């Protein structure tokens, strides 16, 4: 394990200090927490957005704080959902009287911790609503199990819900737009190499020199298939097909596309992948409304990528296009 770190036990704390040093005018850390909020929080009468989860997915989630996106990000330990007390602090800090909206990724830990925080906040008289993002089609969606995971599609949900809130919508309206985004977003990822949590000191899995894994989770959860590394075009086809098996697009439907790097993938490779993704969508009569290529939801130094499609309607398009000042998603 080679990393630019000091004490592996304090990476999250050190990172957050460095983050605040870099953005002293726009971000603040609530004292004695791992909660980052916009510096001008709370915004009176605006529905406030809180997201969060384990650390190690940077720029998720603190990079998405800004006008038109999040008001706060709750940063858990490495790959570990933050605790209810931390989420509660975030909710209390950003509530501007119009209620707080939680964007939760569908992991047992996140769901439980955020739910408990919501209960505590409601007990204190704060209105709370939430959405649970479950875009990862690598996992079977079943009501008997935990269901699909939340991965890079979460960024689109931040954007949609954040734009809606910035436009002055009510908590209920924000929830309804966010749910529409969740219903229309699907992602599928793959990994070329694993990553190492600093305190664990060794990778969560290993792949042979010419092996890739399809469907790996953003915490190194095992995927659905291992096989020899394929060409970019074949990878694009496999990811897109898996997504399109799960969500129906009709001729002429428009989509926002995200080609997300897992942390160690050169931008060059993401663009090479995008070339084929774009072509495949065109072949299927799907029109690409906007494309986002970069590291949006990472897994430390994992090499690999995910592809996300968000099926758009008029409302989603205008919310996607609305201004955002978040450093990791400037629009």
């Amino acid at each position, binding site marked *: 394990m080679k990393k630019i770190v000091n004490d592996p036990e304090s990476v999250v704390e050190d990172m957050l200090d460095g983050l605040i040093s870099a953005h002293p005018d726009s971000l603040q850390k609530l004292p004695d927490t791992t909660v980052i909020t916009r510096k001008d929080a709370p915004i009176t009468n605006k529905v406030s957005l809180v997201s969060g989860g384990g650390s190690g997915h940077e720029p998720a989630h603190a990079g998405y704080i800004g006008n038109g996106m999040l008001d706060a990000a709750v940063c858990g330990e490495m790959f570990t959902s933050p605790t209810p007390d931390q989420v509660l602090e975030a909710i209390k800090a950003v509530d501007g009287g119009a209620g707080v909206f939680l964007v939760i990724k569908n992991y047992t*830990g996140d769901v439980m911790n955020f739910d408990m925080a919501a209960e505590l906040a409601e007990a204190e008289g704060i209105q709370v609503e939430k959405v649970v993002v479950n875009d990862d089609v690598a996992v079977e969606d079943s009501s008997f199990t935990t269901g699909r995971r939340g991965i890079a599609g979460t960024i689109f949900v931040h954007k949609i819900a954040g734009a809606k809130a910035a436009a002055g919508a009510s908590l209920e309206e924000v929830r309804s737009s966010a749910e529409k985004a969740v219903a229309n977003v699907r992602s599928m990822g793959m990994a070329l190499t694993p990553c190492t949590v600093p305190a664990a000191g060794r990778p969560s899995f290993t792949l042979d020199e010419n092996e890739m894994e399809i469907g790996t989770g953003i915490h190194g959860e095992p995927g659905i298939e291992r096989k020899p590394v394929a060409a970019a075009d074949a990878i694009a086809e496999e990811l897109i097909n898996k997504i399109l098996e799960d969500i129906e697009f009709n001729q002429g439907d428009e989509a926002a596309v995200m080609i997300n790097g897992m942390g160690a993938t050169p931008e060059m490779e993401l663009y090479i992948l995008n070339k084929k993704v774009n072509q495949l969508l065109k072949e299927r009569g799907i029109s690409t409304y906007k494309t986002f290529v970069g590291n949006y939801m990472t897994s430390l130094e994992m090499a690999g990528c995910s592809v996300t499609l968000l099926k758009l309607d008029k409302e989603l398009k205008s919310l996607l296009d609305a201004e955002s000042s978040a450093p990791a998603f400037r629009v």
Partner: protein
Amino acid sequence: MELNAQDIITWMHKTNERLQNNKDYLTTLDQAIGDGDHGINMARGFKEVVNKLDNENYETASDALRDTAMTVMSKVGGASGPLYGTAFLKLATSLKGIDPVDESSFKTGLEEALAGVKQRGKSDQGEKTLIDVWIPVMELFDNNFSPEKLTDTAEKAMENTKDMKATKGRASYLGDRSIGHLDPGSVSSFYLFTSLADTVKGGE
């Protein structure tokens, strides 16, 4: 069996020792079918638990369990944090006003803890989670309890999770491929209950 505040503190110390010593092992188990943080989470949380318990004075077992719950809840994180936190909190609430804790009350406490865990986790027996250790352990009390049986029952229950297919928690993403691996949360629950057995036995 009787438990007072000091017994709870001893119990948590013994649990913490096992968690610290097996942090890496738990992490390895979680890397196989989860995300590899269970050992780190539990070790971090219980270090804080014993720290907390050592720095306060407790009149009753319930009070000590309450602080255990709050510390676990705010320091463990992940799925196991709220689940263990809920369990200890329900146990503490159920045992309020009962000191020392007798076997029958403890069983009721465990029942309520389990109900809380099931509700919080939307989970039940046979889904390859720590519930699969807590249920047989709970059934042992006020029946034919002995420290040896406690360790034995918890250990067997833990081992039984190996052949289960996970339908809840992170391991559920693996479907059938979760079979053949121990559930990390069941292993940490085994540490918890074998530490309780040690505590009841006394000594060390």
